[in-house]
């Protein structure tokens, strides 16, 4: 198997890079993104830019969002009944919190699996206008655009990888850009990523209240940070896009 880890940045992509990477399995891969949010200068406030990193990992019926700056990883697995079950790992502590399906907002939504694995749903993508395509076969890139409610959306999509290579939305007040910076086709590294998280000590969320003597869980009880991971940018249709700024969702 050919293993290539390439820096893949939209706009400087070469067809050759994609030509090789395409030989990898899109269902077992990693993709690193740089997320950038810019608040434009306005009356009473200065311009502000924040960045964060998100890694997407796919392995069959498992998908992970690694929030590298926050050292938090969310892993979702697809159940036979179509639901998804989340586990949130705190990489700094090598601990995890297991949720039952339903326990995290959106986990019962059938679209959530598609959102987590593709970052942008087909529905969202299909509501955008295809401007042009470039390249063929594995090298093909599709360029989309949309304008809705004062927001201008731009998407560069790799059909072979089923991944956005670049996503941008711009309003009068802010812009948000997600850029693929590194594609990881090495399946052994994907396995290593998931296996490592799987080795963490985990606790059912329902059990946290009975374990207040555990320093890690006590910290969660007091600070409440466990239930509020950030997320990817899986919504291009204005229905759940998260900020790029490294904050917890409350």
């Amino acid at each position: 198997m050919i293993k290539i880890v390439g820096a893949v940045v939209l706009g400087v992509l070469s067809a050759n890079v994609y030509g090789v990477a395409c030989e990898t399995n899109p269902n077992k891969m990693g993709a690193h993104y740089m997320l950038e949010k810019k608040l434009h200068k306005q009356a009473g406030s200065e311009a502000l830019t924040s960045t964060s990193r998100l890694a997407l990992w796919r392995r069959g019926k498992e998908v992970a969002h690694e929030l590298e700056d926050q050292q938090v990883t969310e892993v979702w697995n697809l159940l036979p009944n179509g639901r998804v079950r989340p586990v949130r790992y705190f990489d700094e502590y090598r601990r995890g919190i297991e949720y039952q399906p339903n326990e995290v907002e959106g986990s019962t939504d059938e679209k959530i699996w598609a959102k987590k694995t593709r970052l942008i749903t087909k529905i969202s993508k299909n509501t955008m206008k295809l401007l042009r395509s470039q390249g063929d076969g594995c090298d093909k890139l599709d360029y989309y655009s949309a304008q809705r409610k004062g927001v201008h959306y731009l998407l560069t999509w790799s059909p072979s990888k089923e991944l956005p290579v670049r996503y941008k939305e711009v309003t009068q007040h802010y812009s948000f850009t997600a850029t693929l910076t590194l594609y990881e086709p090495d399946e052994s590294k994907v396995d290593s990523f998931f296996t490592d998280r799987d080795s963490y000590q985990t606790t059912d969320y329902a059990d946290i209240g009975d374990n207040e003597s555990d320093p890690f869980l006590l910290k969660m009880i007091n600070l409440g940070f466990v239930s509020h991971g950030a997320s990817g940018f899986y919504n291009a249709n204005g229905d759940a896009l998260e900020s790029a700024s490294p904050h917890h969702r409350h």
Partner: protein
Amino acid sequence: MKNTLMVSAIATLILSGCGGSSSDSGSSSSDTDNVNRSAMLENTENNSWFGEAKLNVSSAADYTVEAGSAKNIILFVGDGMGISTVTAARILEGQLKGMDGEENVLSFGKFPFSGLAKTYNVDAQTPDSAGTMTAIMSGAKTDVGVIGVDEDIVRGDCSTIAGNELMSALEIAEIAGKSTGVISTARITHATPAATYAKSADRNWEDVSDIEGDDDKVNCDVNDLPEDIASQLVNFESNLEDRFPGLDVDGLEVVMGGGRRHFLPKDAAFNTIDAVSTVEGDRTDGRDLTAEWQSLYTDGNYVIDRAGFNAIDASTAEHIFGLFNESHMHYEADRHNDIAGEPSLREMTEKAIDVLDNNNDGFFLMVESGRIDHAHHAGSAYSALTDTIEFAEAVQAAVDATDSEDTLIIVTADHGHVFTIAGYPKRGNPILGKVVNVGAEAPALASDGMPYTTLGYMNGRGFSHLGDETDADKGYGERINPGRHDLLFIDTESAGFHQEALVPLSSETHSGEDVGIYAMGPGASLVTSTNEQNILFHIMDYAGLLTETADNRLQ
């Protein structure tokens, strides 16, 4: 001074086999029996908690209770079912039946005797389930977070387990020849059910990976870790026999609950159709305890879903091992969402009694509603109360299936929660609703100008409104939202409404007040007044003549 029950028992065997010590010392078989008896209860009898409570029960003649008059004993534990929970569930059940509600009586509210239990642990003013259930089951109060061991244990210290183990009423009943069973809607390795059969320096050591991964454990030999709780459940019979040489018991007849993950290897090949994780099992030692159980009990029924449960013929079943969920079973209101289907607590109770009552020597059964506690932790009164109502139905099923002449039924809680019934709502006001004062039709307004609910929490995650969501834990996906909110247009009676809380915490907490004890059947009159919680063991022991019968059997 304290001796080790198990070590003493083994020492007895060793001594009796060393150079004819029996004849050398002049001891007779009755001496050996005495040693056995001493070995069995010495540790617990020398415990000060145990002794004081036993003394109280020794005055039983005043209550005209005949020792041993209870052939069967059923202990119901509503985890976290404090007094306010019982009251609110009573009202909700009544209102669901079309009554005003307040006049309603839960099944166990009709029991002729009741009392209070002081729930504190030896080292904690507000307790946890591990310490309280150990007190209930073994007759001695102990520390928070430990299972089946006394207060000399150091939590997480492997070296302090030996010598501090306590016998449980279920174990003694097993030795006495009774059939035995454990039921829980939580994981069957969770603290409350575990305290009936296991000894552990930490309640979280549910399988071997939990011990290996516990960074806080001390004095543990990584090559010889203590036996995890799940393994102790499957090895219950052999472990008990090892502790009492010559003893022959037939093991737990009924085990039903959740927690399959602690019994399966960490290998996706062992996943069941009901799995919610990519790899369902957690065990890192490669053991499949479900297979081990089936090889031990070839006449047994191992089931994981409702269909398997329904297929069990209770009239002929010898052993049942039901693990209906990877982790905890569902809240009663959310049970329909289980992948493979789960039985209700009432159904499990009925099935268990059908199996256990095949023994002419009687039975001991512990039934826990484990998720009342979890619903409160999540700040969901709806789920806590609907689980309590199902719990009451399970109690009624037990009453209906047994003879009050020979069956002692005790209903209690291990601890309460910071859950309140407040304001001055008028008679019949929906218990899950907003306070409407006497003579009024519109919700009363607080000094902040907003309506408020009758039910609320002192601490926890606070308000969230999730519509008809029946999984209380979904509230954990919402932000912590303490304090007051405008509830005017909120349906606070819906399943997904989570009550307001004052102090913001990620998980609502236990409370430290007394809990109720309700009893019927032989020995029930011993339940009165305000008691240390560990008295419950002694009431069951006295009414069932457990220890004496076990002693006789050991002889």
